[in-house]
């Protein structure tokens, strides 16, 4: 159509010249000129209107892409298997109920946010209800403060407003009676779990059996099925028309990166090959390698964000192994008797503290004082008992926190060994909210509670909704750096990547370039050509004006 374009261009030039050369001296000449300008303007306005209409119509036609119905279906399936996985995996019922997050937050939120504290308390009540335990204020019996607060909170929650004035007033009231009321609530949630632990475990065991029976799969089978679905979804999304278009619309892809010259340049840089000289077979093979490298690099980049968690677990494991070795030597030399583990000692301590608290509570609550005003001596006795009980509640809180640390230590030693993969370690760390939160604070001491919550979700989503291809194959005993492992593999496949590409200031550039090539190849598998997308983005910009 070059000829038509040239003709129009020529016509414009001619019309411009006519206007420019027409005489402008004298009123008659001016009037003629004005008439010519007006006629020409009308002609070109008509043409412009036609052009704009055509532009818009083509834009509409090109951008008419239907939502892929397969993607939400697969998403649903992924969620189904994810839920099945979460109900059958090795985590304890405490983590399955999400109480690890609740207790961490109850412990921390009261300093900053009463609303969030209330939300977590009600969440815990709901979680207990889900496993068949209907809680009332009477279950919050660690102290009168916990009970009195929960009485109002549960009543208001039933009315639909957990942050009502009544709740705020009640908090104010109990807080001035006991400023450690939030510690009491923390201890109480943990006590309720301890009390019903066997029942809850039974609930999850039965649920797990039912899920496995219904799906006719093993625990590993569920994970495999989920991974397969994730892979399938990712593949569809990569070439999905709407997905591609949305990425350009939202700015996550930039059309300027996808100019042919840029593609050719980056292709040459990454593969050492001129893409125009490659045979179809060579091109397909290289594109497959680029696709795999892209997947590996995306996973690697995400892993780098959370590497500090893996390092934290591995450091703790090294320290524990060292201590265990020293203790083993001592034990071998001194006594042969099997000693209780620190975990068992702490468990016992928790039980004893609970018993002591309830013994004191019984004394405080004894209703044998008649209807008359109590004597001052009895009141004093009560106050002493309350003081003792309150101190014990704080001791119990401390014991629970030590127990958590000890439980993690024990699980690190029991569940992780030299054959564990980096993925196993990351998954392990992500299973314990409190552990993750502490590691995040150690990594960045300015992090807020909100950011901890958001990051924890991101990490868990990464673990639960990715199809891993790298970190699940690399053992913690591997001495080679992960970047070198990836680099070596693709070097063997003819890619021009070096150790330098993986350095801090270059890795982003490598990821970006590999992504451009891979996305370019995927675009060509969609309904769009690069030219279509260029057109769409140009018109979109035009329409904005």
């Amino acid at each position, binding site marked *: *159509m070059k000829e038509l374009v040239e003709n*129009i261009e020529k016509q414009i030039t001619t019309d411009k010249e006519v206007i420019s050369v027409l005489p402008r001296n004298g009123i008659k000449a001016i*009037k003629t000129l*004005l008439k010519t*300008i007006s006629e020409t303007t009308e002609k070109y306005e008509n043409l412009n209107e036609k052009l*704009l209409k055509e532009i818009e119509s083509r834009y509409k036609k090109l951008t008419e892409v239907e939502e892929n119905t397969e993607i939400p279906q697969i998403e649903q399936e992924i969620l189904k298997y994810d839920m099945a996985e979460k109900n059958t995996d090795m985590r304890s019922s405490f983590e399955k109920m999400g109480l690890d997050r609740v207790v961490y937050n109850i412990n921390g939120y009261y300093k900053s946010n009463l609303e969030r504290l209330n939300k977590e308390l009600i969440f815990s009540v709901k979680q207990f209800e889900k496993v068949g335990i209907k809680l009332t204020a009477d279950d919050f019996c660690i102290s009168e403060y916990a009970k009195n607060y929960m009485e109002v909170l549960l009543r208001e929650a039933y009315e639909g407003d957990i942050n009502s004035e009544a709740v705020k007033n009640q908090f104010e009231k109990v807080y001035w009676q006991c400023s450690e009321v939030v510690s009491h609530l923390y201890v109480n949630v943990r006590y309720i779990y301890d009390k019903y632990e066997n029942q809850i475990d039974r609930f999850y065991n039965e649920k797990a059996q039912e899920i496995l029976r219904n799906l006719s799969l093993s625990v590993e089978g569920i994970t495999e099925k989920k991974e397969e679905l994730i892979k399938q979804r990712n593949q569809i999304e990569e070439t999905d028309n709407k997905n591609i278009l949305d990425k350009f619309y939202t700015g996550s892809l930039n059309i300027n990166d996808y100019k042919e010259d840029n593609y050719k340049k980056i292709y040459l840089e990454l593969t050492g090959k001129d893409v125009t000289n490659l045979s179809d077979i060579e091109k397909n093979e290289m594109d497959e390698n680029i696709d795999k490298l892209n997947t590996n690099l995306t996973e690697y980049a995400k892993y780098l964000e959370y590497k500090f968690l893996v390092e934290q677990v591995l450091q703790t494991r090294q320290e524990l192994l060292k201590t265990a070795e020293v203790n083993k030597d001592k034990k071998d030399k001194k006594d042969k008797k099997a000693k209780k583990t620190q975990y068992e000692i702490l468990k016992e301590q928790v039980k004893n503290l609970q018993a002591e608290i309830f013994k004191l509570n019984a004394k405080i609550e004894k209703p044998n004082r008649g209807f008359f005003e109590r004597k001052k001596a009895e009141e004093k006795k009560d106050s002493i008992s309350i003081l003792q009980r309150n101190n014990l509640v704080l001791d119990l809180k401390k014991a629970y926190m030590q127990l958590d640390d000890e439980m993690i230590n024990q699980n690190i030693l029991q569940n992780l060994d030299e054959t564990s993969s980096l993925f196993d370690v990351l998954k392990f760390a992500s299973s314990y909210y409190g552990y993750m939160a502490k590691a995040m604070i150690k990594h960045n001491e300015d992090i807020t509670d909100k950011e901890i919550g958001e990051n924890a979700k991101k990490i868990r989503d990464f673990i639960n909704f990715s199809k891993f291809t790298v970190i699940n194959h690399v053992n913690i005993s591997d001495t080679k750096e992960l970047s070198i492992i990836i680099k070596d593999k693709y070097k063997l496949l003819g890619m021009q990547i070096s150790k330098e590409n993986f350095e801090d200031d270059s890795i982003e550039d490598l990821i970006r370039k590999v992504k451009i090539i891979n996305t370019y190849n995927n675009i060509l598998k969609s309904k769009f050509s690069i030219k279509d997308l260029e057109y769409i983005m140009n018109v979109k910009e035009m329409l904005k004006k």
Partner: protein
Amino acid sequence: MELKNIKISNLENDELLDIQKQVESFLKFLNGENETVKKLEEENS
């Protein structure tokens, strides 16, 4: 060449955009010229 007879449906996408830009720019030129000449008309009347 008669502008009204141009078959714009025969233009490629990029050509269509290019031509529209040129037309728009020419319309701006015409608008400018119109104003200039009108001023001339005022001065001469």
